C-alpha cells in the first residue's frame, strides 16, 4: 500500500499500478480517486433531483388556469350615463365606477390605493370615502385626504363596433405615471 504522503506529493511510486503499466481499474476496481469522482456524480445527481423536486413543488402552487371573474365587460351605451354623475352600477359586479363629465367617460377602479379596501361614493359631499382608514378621493380619482398615497387607478375604456362601452380591467392607467393622458384611459364622446 502506498502511504498517504506519496499520493499527495505525487512522487512516482515504482509499485504503483500506473508504473506497472496497469490502469487502476484493473487492480482495485474502485480506488480513492475514482471513488471521489463517482461521489461527485452522486452529489450532483442528488442536488439536481432535490432542486427539481422543490422547483416542481413551487411551480405546483402557481395555477395555469384561474377561475376568476371576467376582466372585460360591456357597460352599455354612452347615453346611459348622465353628465356630471358617478355611476355605481358596476361597483359590486366588476369593481368599477363609470363617470361621465363634459368631455367624456372614464372607468375608475374601486380599489383604494392605500390598502385595497373599497371606498363609497358620497354624492352629497361629492367624494369617494374609504371606510377602512378614511382616504378621500375626488370624482376624478385624485386623492385629497387620508392616508392614500396616490390617485385611484383608471381602466382601459373603448367603444365597441356597435357603439357600446367596453371596459378592460387588465389594462390600468395611473395618474402619477402620467398615464391618464393615454387615449384609451379616457373615452371622448
Amino acid at each position: 500500500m502506498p502511504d498517504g504522503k506519496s499520493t499527495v506529493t505525487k512522487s512516482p511510486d515504482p509499485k504503483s499500478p500506473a508504473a506497472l503499466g496497469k490502469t487502476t481499474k484493473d487492480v482495485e476496481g474502485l480506488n480513492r480517486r475514482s471513488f471521489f469522482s463517482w461521489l461527485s456524480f452522486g452529489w450532483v445527481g442528488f442536488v439536481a433531483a432535490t432542486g427539481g423536486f422543490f422547483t416542481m413543488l413551487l411551480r405546483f402552487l402557481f395555477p395555469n388556469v384561474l377561475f376568476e371573474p371576467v376582466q372585460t365587460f360591456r357597460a352599455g351605451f354612452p347615453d346611459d350615463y348622465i353628465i356630471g354623475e358617478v355611476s355605481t352600477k358596476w361597483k359590486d359586479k366588476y369593481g368599477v365606477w363609470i363617470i361621465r363629465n363634459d368631455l367624456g367617460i372614464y372607468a375608475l377602479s374601486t380599489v383604494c390605493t392605500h390598502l385595497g379596501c373599497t371606498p363609497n361614493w358620497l354624492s352629497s359631499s361629492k367624494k369617494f370615502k374609504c371606510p377602512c382608514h378614511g382616504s378621500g378621493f375626488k370624482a376624478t380619482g385624485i386623492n385629497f385626504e387620508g392616508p392614500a398615497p396616490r390617485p385611484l387607478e383608471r381602466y382601459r375604456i373603448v367603444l365597441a363596433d356597435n357603439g357600446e362601452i367596453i371596459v378592460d380591467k387588465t389594462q390600468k392607467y395611473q395618474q402619477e405615471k402620467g398615464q391618464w393622458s393615454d387615449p384609451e384611459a379616457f373615452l371622448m364622446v
Partner: protein
Amino acid sequence: MSEKNNKSFLEKAADSQVWKSIFRGGGVPRNRRQRMMSVLNSVFLHLHPVRLPKHAVKLKFTWCMGGLSFFIFLILTISGILLMFYYRPTIEYAYTDIIDLAEQVPFGIMRELHRWGAHAMVITVWLHMFRVFMTGSYKPPREFNWAVGVVLLLLTLLLSFTGYLLPWDQLAIWAITVGGNMARATPFLGSEGPGAALLAIGDINFVTMGSDARFILIGGRFMGEAALLRFYVLHCIGLPFIIMIFMAVHFWRVRKDGGISTPV
C-alpha cells in the same frame, strides 16, 4: 405465596407482559435511576426534563406561560378538528357554516372556544416570551431555543392570520385583502415591491400580479375562492404540521439546555 398476595394491583399490572411491552423497561420505578429511565424510555415524556428542581417550577417565576400555551394549543387542535366536521371552505358555504356551528350544531360554544383560545394563545405566547426575556432565559446555552421560540411565535401569528379568513365575513375579507396587498409590496417577490421591476427582460416582467408573492398566497389575482381554500389548508394542515415539529424541538431543547428557568 403470602408475599405475592401482598402485591398491589398496580404492582401486579406492572409485572405483566402487556405493561412491559408498552412501557419499555417495565415494572414500577422504585429508585431515582428507575424513575429517570421511565421518563427517558417514553417517546412523549422524553421531550420533558427527567428531573425538575422544586424552585424551577415556581409559578411566580415561570408564570406557567409556556405550559399554558401548549395546553391551549391542544384545546385548539381538538376543537379545530371538531369544527372541520361541519365547516366547508367555499364562498357559498363558509359564512353560513359558521352561523350553523354557532346556532344549530350541538355545543355552539365549540367555535367560540376555538376563537377565544386562539386569542388566548397569542397572549400567552407573548407573555411567555416576555417572561423568558425578563428572566434572561434566552442567554447561552439557551440562545438557539430562543430562536426556535421566535419561529413558534411567527407560526402562532400565521395560524391566527389564516384562521381569521375562514368565517368569510366582511372583517375577514378585508383583513386578508389588506394582508395580501402587503405581500404585494415584498421586495423583489411582490409585483409592487422595491426591486421587482429589476427582474425583467426588456418589456417582459417576471414578477407581475399573476406571478408574485401575493399570487402564490391567495392562489389568484383577486381575493376569492382560491384564497379561502389555500388559507384553509394552511390553517388546518400546513402550519399545524410545521408548528408541531418546532414545538417538539423546543421542548426537547428546554430539557437539553438545562431545564426550565434554572441558572446554567
